[in-house]
């Protein structure tokens, strides 16, 4: 096994669980059951916060809604835990789906605020809709857990049921956060624009993670209400969310083991200090502070680092290289841009830009800083929506297509600043682009091991072709700049594109590296791949480009062969400067 920590934790957990069942008082068993319920909540939070990287403040609410659904079903209609589960899980998921439409596109703290506000509304509804929810008092007299009609008694039976659910939930979460999906999440967290540009449907991924968090929350809520046997607005309150966040950060925000370990720790911690009487919460606060200051990346990640230092695990072996599937060659115009216009505030970044690109053609795009070159690239790849104009690719209108769909259609790009995921290996950085279309939580549930292995094989071939084979297993962040450029180009080629957009590919490369890059790009163009290259480096660009276009203030001011462009007075005035003439 490459990851000894989960096994170690599993062993500790099993020993402790056996001890608790054999010797623990009902109190111990109950506290551990509650810890298990919070573990399930935290597993859901792991999806949206740890993996998708969105600071959601609604997970507590999903748990509360699940609790109310199960609680009302039990108290009003006598429906037991097991029969009410579909409702308790389905209702939060439904709510999450409804809320996601307006809320999920918001960024960082705006998303956090929106989810917080929704939680506040849910709390108000639960408090005020006395007829349904029992108001602030809540609903009591809810029965204990049942399974297939059999009662599950408090104590070890409940503990076993709850922790079986944690085991299944943890296994599912491990699937959804490992393999292709985990790599997809990592790219998305590092940079959303890059993720979309390599064909990842980040919106779908985020949406699925949000729904998954709601499902886990709802399930935890159903268990909660039949364990505590009362449901009240308390379960919808902000303190539950704070607990959930604390578990995630203290445990380790991206690890399944972190969610579970954090839940156990955060639930038990105040109980351990009970002997301190009036001072126990003070002690809890102090210990919480000490833990976060000493282990800021969370206990599991700290333990992992420690274990890695002790055991020094070997990296996974390289998969056998696989051939890259061929690209169909097409004739006719590849890219047609007509009268493209895009403004930011009052500033026209692109003003009536039109251009054509044929298969195998290399088009150089130059212009002063701020003339709209990158904006043009962003419009073509769907990161920006143009205000007017039309973009056709392979004859199809792609003006309004989402970025990931454009990328999957065969239009790849690189960025001005290399945007690889630093902690992921070069190989996986490329492999994820090979299988970007297969990344999804539902697929992840079925297991993506074979696909990932195949993708790694293809990625190995691509890295070899790009001259970066020897660094395949190193974290991308540790690579020299020039090598990172090569990995990034290999990743773009993993999409098997017909057109490659390069934004200042030679920046930061020395002459030797520039020459090497130019040679590789020329080979690609001869193989039928069209290139659109933004570059300030004229000695690099002039011999490479078949044709050039110069932008200034968002308008095309010159277009023609490299020689024509070089002597164009407008280009000299705006861009090259007198000295270069």
């Amino acid at each position: 096994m490459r990851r000894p920590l989960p096994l170690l934790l599993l062993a500790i957990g099993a020993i402790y669980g056996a001890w608790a069942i054999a010797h623990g008082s009902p109190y111990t068993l109950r506290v551990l059951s509650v810890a298990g319920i919070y573990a399930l909540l935290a597993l859901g939070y792991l999806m949206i916060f740890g993996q998708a990287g969105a600071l959601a403040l609604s997970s507590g609410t999903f748990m509360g809604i699940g609790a109310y659904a199960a609680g009302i079903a039990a108290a009003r209609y006598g429906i037991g835990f097991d029969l009410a589960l579909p409702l308790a899980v389905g209702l939060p998921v439904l709510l999450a789906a409804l809320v996601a439409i307006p809320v999920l596109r918001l960024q960082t703290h705006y998303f956090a605020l929106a989810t917080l506000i929704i939680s506040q509304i849910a709390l108000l509804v639960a408090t005020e809709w006395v007829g349904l929810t029992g108001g602030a008092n809540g609903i009591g007299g809810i029965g204990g857990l049942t399974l297939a009609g059999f009662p599950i008694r408090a104590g070890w039976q409940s503990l076993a049921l709850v922790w079986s659910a944690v085991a299944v939930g943890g296994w599912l979460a491990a699937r959804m956060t490992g393999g292709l999906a985990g790599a997809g999440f990592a790219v998305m967290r590092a940079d959303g624009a890059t993720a979309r540009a390599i064909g990842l449907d980040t919106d779908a991924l985020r949406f699925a993670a949000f729904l998954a968090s709601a499902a886990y929350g709802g399930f935890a809520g159903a268990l909660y209400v039949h364990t505590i046997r009362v449901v009240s607005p308390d379960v919808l309150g902000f303190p539950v969310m704070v607990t959930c966040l604390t578990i995630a950060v203290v445990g380790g925000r991206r690890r399944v083991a972190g969610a579970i370990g954090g839940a156990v720790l955060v639930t038990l911690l105040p109980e351990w200090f009970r002997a301190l009487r009036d001072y126990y919460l003070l002690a809890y606060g102090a210990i919480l502070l000490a833990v976060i200051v000493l282990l800021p990346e969370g206990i599991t990640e700290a333990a992992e680092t420690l274990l890695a230092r002790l055991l020094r695990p070997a990296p996974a072996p390289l998969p056998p290289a696989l051939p890259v599937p061929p690209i169909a060659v097409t004739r006719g115009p590849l890219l047609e841009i007509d009268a493209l216009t895009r403004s930011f505030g009052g500033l026209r970044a692109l003003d009536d830009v039109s251009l054509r690109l044929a298969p195998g053609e290399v088009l150089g795009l130059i212009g002063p800083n701020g003339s709209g070159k990158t904006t043009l690239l962003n419009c073509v790849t769907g990161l920006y929506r143009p205000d007017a104009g039309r973009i056709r690719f392979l004859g199809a209108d792609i003006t309004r297509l989402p970025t990931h769909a454009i990328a999957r259609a065969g239009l790849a790009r690189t960025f001005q600043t290399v945007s690889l995921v630093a902690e992921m290996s070069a190989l996986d950085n490329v492999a994820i682009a090979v299988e970007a279309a297969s990344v999804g939580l539902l697929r992840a549930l079925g297991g993506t091991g074979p696909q990932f292995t195949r993708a790694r094989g293809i990625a190995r071939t691509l890295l070899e072709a790009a001259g970066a084979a020897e660094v395949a297993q190193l974290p991308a962040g540790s690579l020299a700049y020039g090598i990172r450029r090569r990995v990034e180009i290999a990743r773009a080629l993993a999409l098997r594109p017909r057109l490659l957009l390069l934004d200042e590919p030679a920046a930061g490369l020395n002459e030797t590296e520039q020459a090497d890059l130019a040679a590789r790009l020329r080979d690609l163009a001869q193989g039928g791949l069209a290139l659109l290259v933004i570059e300030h480096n004229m000695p690099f660009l002039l011999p490479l480009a078949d044709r050039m276009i110069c932008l200034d203030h968002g308008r095309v001011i010159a277009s023609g062969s490299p020689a024509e462009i070089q002597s164009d007075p407008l280009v000299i005035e705006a861009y090259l400067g007198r000295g270069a003439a």
Partner: protein
Amino acid sequence: MLLEIENCFVSYGQIAALRGVSLGVPAGGAVALLGANGAGKSTLMRTIIGLLRPRAGRIRFAGTDITALPAASRARLGLGYCPEGRRVFPGLSIRDNLLVACWAGRAERARRLEQMFTLFPALGERPGANAWQLSGGQQQMLAIGRSLMNAPRLLLLDEPSLGLSPRLTEEVLGRIPQIVASGTAVLLAEQNAARALSVCGHGSVLRLGELVLAGPAAELAASPDIRRAFLGG
């Protein structure tokens, strides 16, 4: 020597970035620091200003050992730093970006602000504009202006031409002789070797964290080794 670096070793975790580099910059002189990307130019710059700590070696500035001083103290001793990638304060106005870097009194601050607007007229056009609204070239000038505001005895310029159009590169590098003439020594890290050597009196070449070549700019520009490595000749 205004700045003396003796046998400096710097590493990132396990990876050695500088391996025993020694280098000097004379008062009032200009030295071009050449080398491929990853050779250690930026690392050396960051070590001199104090954002990185050497594992071994010493740095002396104007006769004082500054190896253990924090960055803020070094800046106040008379080191000006213009980082790679500009890194202007995006939410501060042009004026505030300049003023914040000056430790002189109010009247002197105002005088230097005017000086910068004379040196870079583009900045004086809209001094209230926020830095993030500026184009790349303007930001580069602002970053240089900022590093000059405390009237440093030595200016560290890290890749000022990165990402600039040929015309802007010319404008920015063209200011360097003026700066040197005003009495500020310059250490210039630059990809564009030919252009860098044309504005500096001396040059030093880094390769894989080691200093491999140093000498007067004219000699280096003519050296076949340099021509092969940097000038495409």
